């Protein structure tokens, strides 16, 4: 009986830890791995997302608002993809960074793709951090 309770408590803690790692990993790219002691993995994966996000901004990309419809229905999809970068997205939206359409730049479309893929990759990182926290991945 005591053993069953102990296993249940351990499972609950493990599940909460996994959710926390996933959420923190989504909020700040790479942190979900770092908080679990996966330093190399966190630096490599988080670094890749950060470089892609910053490159996207430098290339003239635009971050779409999740509730704006400037480019039609697709804006909502773009906004969801951009939202994947977590607090980076919120911070940039708050400070007005990369919120304007810079289509006069030859590389602005590349920038848009970089920003969206950075979000997608960070969703993947958050799921990876969750899996590690839940013990599904070594």
């Amino acid at each position, binding site marked *: 009986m005591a053993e069953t309770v102990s296993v249940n408590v351990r499972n609950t803690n493990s599940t909460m830890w996994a959710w926390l790692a996933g959420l923190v990993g989504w909020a700040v790219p790479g942190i979900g791995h770092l908080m679990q002691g996966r330093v190399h993995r966190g630096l490599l994966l988080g670094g890749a*997302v950060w470089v892609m996000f910053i490159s996207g901004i430098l290339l003239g990309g635009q971050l779409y608002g999740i509730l704006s419809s400037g480019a039609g229905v697709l804006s909502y999809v773009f906004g969801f993809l951009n939202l994947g970068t977590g607090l980076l997205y919120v911070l940039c939206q708050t400070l007005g960074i990369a919120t304007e359409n810079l289509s006069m730049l030859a590389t602005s479309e590349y920038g848009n793709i970089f920003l969206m893929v950075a979000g997608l*990759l960070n969703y993947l990182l958050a799921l990876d951090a969750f899996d590690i926290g839940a013990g599904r991945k070594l």
Partner: protein
Amino acid sequence: MTHFLVLLLFAALVGIVFGVVGRDTARSRTLYGVKIFLEFVGVGVGLAWLLYWIPI
């Protein structure tokens, strides 16, 4: 040339993430990451070459 460098950067970053997340050992990660990188660059250059001959 700038466009090609952007393609290289994109392929390298995606290759790193897919390689690390998608495989378990260091060797298989490296091989998978390089494979993803080469596929992105190859398909990108191939499509660019193809579109060059198609009048718009």
